[in-house]
């Protein structure tokens, strides 16, 4: 039979993927400097996003797929009235914070601007803040 079909014995995950997964699961950030830099990066990124809201070429992309969609537990897009599902919210936030290309660049074998990643966090930022506030109140 094996002459006719490829064997489908599933291998273990590629080691590169395992390395990434283990890194995010196990690594604890201890460096104060890294945390401080990340905080500054967050502020700067927010600034880049807010400034981009002045540009119609950018803002025409923002908003839900169907006009008027209401998402009760959605994620906010900073600087706008929008509350969207997390996927579109990440899209919109990523769009505004990168629009003006003011961000830092990482130059190596590949060039890139890693901070757009931040867009994906916004939802959890809000949630964790709310959570923190709630805990604070209960104390």
């Amino acid at each position, binding site marked *: 039979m094996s002459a006719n079909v490829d064997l489908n014995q599933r291998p273990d995950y*590629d080691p590169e993927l395992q390395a990434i*997964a283990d*890194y995010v699961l196990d690594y604890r*950030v201890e460096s104060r400097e890294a945390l401080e830099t990340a905080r500054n990066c*967050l502020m700067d990124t927010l600034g880049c996003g807010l400034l981009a809201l002045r540009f119609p070429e950018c803002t025409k992309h923002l908003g839900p797929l169907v006009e008027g969609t209401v998402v009760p537990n959605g994620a906010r897009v900073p600087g706008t009235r929008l509350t969207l599902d997390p996927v579109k919210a990440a899209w919109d936030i990523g769009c505004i914070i990168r629009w003006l290309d003011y961000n830092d660049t*990482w130059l190596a074998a590949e060039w890139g601007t890693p901070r757009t990643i931040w867009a994906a966090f916004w939802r959890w930022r809000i949630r*964790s803040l709310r959570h923190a506030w709630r805990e604070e109140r209960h104390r």
Partner: protein
Amino acid sequence: MRDVLEAMIMAHEIQGVLALENSFNRVGLDHVVLVKVASTAVVAKLMGADREQLLSALSHAFVDGQSLRTYRHAPNAGSRKSWAAGDATSRAVRLADIAMRGEMGIPGVLSAPQWGFYDVLFSKTNKDQALKPKRNGASRSARRTAATSWRTCCSRSAFLRSSTLRPPPRLR
């Protein structure tokens, strides 16, 4: 808040380390693939993924067709580069959600011979790929494609209808 800062640091770390030694522009792919991979990893973690879910999400990030870099170069340079990363992060959120629902991953997504990411998209520079004959280089006309798929689809359903009473066809 610390979780968010930590996730930011990790995402920068993942994207930075991958970029150190891997050049995606050499194969014509946009480096936005790194945003997707790094975002997928940390978003899945923030969603509370276990190791299996994380690996599943990551493998799906690589199995996606990756963006062409052409929107950063003449004659095609344009504003897609301004939302490319937003697109990648939103995909990361989507893939993490898919994985969190228990979707199976693709363990050999990078290394599978012939069909994996390395063999398909990463082993040849865009300059040195052997070119197909001109007539096969672009996708065929839409009309022809549509006609073909209709035919295939119809004949297959005809086959399915009739095959219930017949022995299965022999594999070649």
